């Protein structure tokens, strides 16, 4: 299993990343301080000071950054849909073998 897979599926095929609601985000950067995977990037001199720079660094099913978010500005996909997607991709790969 390489660094770019999750449950045997290429990480880039799994849609799991935080989405920032800019109407709520106050750019406190608690999420940046917390996330050890460098998912976010700070852009100090721009109006939008925070972006999701490396979505595929995000650990699938981890929502820890959203739990540090005071203004509740981070959201994630539905876990059931994501796990079903992983199952489907695995089945598809088995059928091709």
């Amino acid at each position, binding site marked *: 299993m390489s*660094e770019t897979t999750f449950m045997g599926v290429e990480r880039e095929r799994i849609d799991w990343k935080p989405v920032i609601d800019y109407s709520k985000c106050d750019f406190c950067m608690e999420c940046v301080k*917390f996330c050890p995977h460098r998912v976010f990037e700070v852009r100090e001199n721009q109006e939008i000071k925070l972006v999701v720079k490396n979505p595929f660094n995000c650990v699938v099913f981890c929502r820890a950054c*959203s*739990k*540090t978010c005071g203004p509740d500005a981070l959201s994630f996909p539905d876990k059931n849909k994501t*796990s079903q997607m*992983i199952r489907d991709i695995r089945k598809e790969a088995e059928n091709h073998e």
Partner: protein
Amino acid sequence: MSEKYAVLPCNGLDKCAGVISREIALRLCGDAGHEIICPVFSRIAELKYRKIISEHPLLVIDGCPTRCASKLAAEKNFKIAGKITVTEEAKKSGIELSDTLQLGEKEHALIGLLLNDLKTPGNTSKQPDEREGESYHFDYETFQKGKFLFRVPVNKDIFFIENDCWAYVSGNRARIGVTDFVQQNLSDILFFTPPEMGSEIDQFGEAGEIESSKSVFEVISPVSGKVIGVNEALIQKPELINENPYELGWIADLELTAFENDKELLIGFDQYFEIMKRKVMDLNG
């Protein structure tokens, strides 16, 4: 809340939720005679509050998930006996807090609800009807990086997910918990929120939370099932997770509902041990 508490609010004055935390603390201390810990003054005059905190269980009131009051308690090494987060309680009650700092009708309604809850014994420590589960003992393979030791139990009935949680399956039941990778990265665990007894959890669903001064970790259930037991001991002693997250530091017992289906996305010791070692090297250099 039948006994006298030391109450530590976040007192955040730039958000509505912080203003609510302050109001709840003031009301608790004014009407019900609990002792307030001022988060601002405690930073420069800690001794003033040491005695109160040593004599009374500590109730922490965070306004929002930034958890300023919890972090202050961790920094000062105050043991948390109970806690609430205003924004979470608002969500549970279906109350949308205003963007302003003035407390309106909705905010006062929430304050009333929370004060009422806090006056009901047991509510702050969130104790469900836990049952004492039997304790297991396992053999471990270990991996050491610097001063940090990472254990992984070697047992064919223990399954893992890549999110560093485990399930020990026995018949139609499973005990679940987190691995050493989680507890070592969180460092000292200060608070445990158990999953709700009787609730149904999907595979990869949330099975409670554990919290340190660094972060809140959502326990991710490796298996689907109904919660039939939680580890009551963790409510008073969350540090048991640091001591051994596989034995006395287990999280919950589940009655399995779809194990044959879940198995497809579970891994055994061999695979997990390799994944964990790689993560340790990546994160800790």
